[in-house]
């Protein structure tokens, strides 16, 4: 009797206990509900909906969508304006991220010096642009960098550095890089805080011990700071890179994508295709914009995944090397 009962009772008991545990935790599930519903509605649903809408020809939110299969996708991929915006977004990322991160690291290392008594004030000054309203800062910057009486051009002219004013946002060759420059200025404070947080995890005693051994600042940087920052660096690069693709407010207010689409990034392209056409003669193309958004979203996730895989690989390599070192040391 008992030998039969045991195998039978086991799965039953297991499922009962799971149900029991869920019932015991009903308050827990109730507490998660508001946050889960909001996330489902505004974060997860839009991902799947973007893909679904991209299968339709749909000119304006008031009109009827019309199923056309994968046609939007095959049309987007050969659209030179899509390609242009896509390329601009990635140029933007590859210009902005390295400059922003290295500048932020230098400033963070300087500010992390305990001898510097004014460090908190400097930190605040470098951080202030981060908290200011992006779209409004963008408009103010078009004045400040204006070729017509803008203060930056006036200062450059007064100093005799330029023969004539620079049209930062009007020159098709310069526009995208001018937006990158403003973006670096605006958001530098965030990676600076990331680096400062990471630097503060390094115990000061390590540097002191290195100093006793006669290490100079270059040794300390190469053999203490860099290796100990590496695990943080992976996540900092990832967060900063994804954030850099999110530049709608600046791109829209500084150049609006112009001149002649020279600085049009992906978000501006999607906005223009789905909403912006309301002011012009062409019809908005929502399904088409969704197809572009799906392509772009997938590429961003691919970049993020590549980065994570690369970081894992580098970590394993390093673990292998240090393991080899310890065994060698043991011998």
């Amino acid at each position, binding site marked *: 009797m008992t030998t039969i009962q045991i195998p039978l009772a086991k799965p039953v008991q297991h499922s009962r206990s799971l149900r029991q545990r869920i019932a015991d935790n009903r308050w827990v599930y109730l507490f998660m509900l508001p946050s889960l519903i909001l*996330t489902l509605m505004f974060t997860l649903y839009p991902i799947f909906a973007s893909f679904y809408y991209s299968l339709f020809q749909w000119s304006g939110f008031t009109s009827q969508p019309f199923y056309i299969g994968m046609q939007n996708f095959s049309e987007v991929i050969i659209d030179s304006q899509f390609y242009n915006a896509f390329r601009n977004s990635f140029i933007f990322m590859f210009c902005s991220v390295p400059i922003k991160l290295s500048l932020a690291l230098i400033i963070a290392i300087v500010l992390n010096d305990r001898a510097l008594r004014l460090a908190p004030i400097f930190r605040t000054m470098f951080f202030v642009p981060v908290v200011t309203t992006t779209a409004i800062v963008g408009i103010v910057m078009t004045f400040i960098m204006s070729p017509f009486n803008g203060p930056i051009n006036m200062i450059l002219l007064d100093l005799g550095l330029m023969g004539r004013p620079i049209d930062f946002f009007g020159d098709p060759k310069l526009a995208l890089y001018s937006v990158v420059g403003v973006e670096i200025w605006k958001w530098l404070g965030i990676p600076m805080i990331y680096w400062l947080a990471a630097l503060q995890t390094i115990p000061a005693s390590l540097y002191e011990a290195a100093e006793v051994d006669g290490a100079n600042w270059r040794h300390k940087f190469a053999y203490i700071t860099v290796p100990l920052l590496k695990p943080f660096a992976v996540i900092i690069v990832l967060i900063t890179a994804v954030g850099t693709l999110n530049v709608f407010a600046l791109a829209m207010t500084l150049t609006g994508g112009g001149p002649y689409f020279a600085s049009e990034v992906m978000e501006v392209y999607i906005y223009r295709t789905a909403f912006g056409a309301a002011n012009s003669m062409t019809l908005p193309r929502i399904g088409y914009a969704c197809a572009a958004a799906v392509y772009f979203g997938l590429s961003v996730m691919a970049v993020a995944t590549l980065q994570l895989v690369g970081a894992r690989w580098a970590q394993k390599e390093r673990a292998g090397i240090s393991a080899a070192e310890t065994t060698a040391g043991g011998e």
Partner: protein
Amino acid sequence: MMTVKAKGLSSEEHQRRLEIRATRLREIVTTIILTPLALIWVYPFLWMVSAAMKTNNEIFRAGTNLLPAEPTFENFQRAWVQANMSQYFLNTVAIAAGSVFIVVATTSMMGYVLGRYRFPGRRIVIGVFVATVFLPKGYTIIPIFELIGNLGLDGTLFGVILAQSGGAHVIFILLFAGYFGQMPKELEEAAIVDGAGFLRVFFQILLPLAKPVIATVVIMQLIASWNDFLLPLVLTLPRPELRTLSVGMFAFRGEYFTDWSGMAAAATIAIIPIILVFLTMQRYFIEGIAGAVKS
């Protein structure tokens, strides 16, 4: 022996003084290098406030001088009344207040259960939230617009509030989870012995203890909401009277393009409050940002 020892001591003392002097020198040099750089960093805001108190004539004529010759507040009045900044200011405050309230409520409850309870499905929930970090916003704006429309909330402030609160807010949840997770178990055990239920334990005992995290979430969400552009731009397209400060200024740029002092005054009205909020609650904000890396 005695003389040698004394000599050793004095050279040690000498060494220490040299080090202090080197540290001081390093401080002075870095301060001298950093000061102009930091001033360049805040220069756009100094220019903005200064231009807001000049006449258009003076901005174009006197050029780079930051001090206005005859400070005037007429520009602020023009921006506040004529350019409708007063209405936009109220809209922005209402949206910020609403989204801060919803976000604090939902993320604190979520963080509380994730940080303090072990239950079936916990790891799935965490996994979903972490995965959402990698989604760019431009990717989701069209379905959000459509969803708000289907809910009948298009052209309402509540629609903007809801859409802004709907981000996954992973960092806030992790901050709450970490904070609640490290509180001692005795806190609620004592309360439960006294007959307190799940709700009372949370709202009356644990939540009030999480004030530092609440402060961080309040200020971070306040600044994010105040500065948001894409969502309010898209959701207020049919209703200009619901525009926020940033959308309003963007819309008026074409109209008042030559009125630099008026635009500078409007920008000052929009930006100075949020800078002041940041300066007074800086510590909490910086902690929130740093929390993204630590967790």
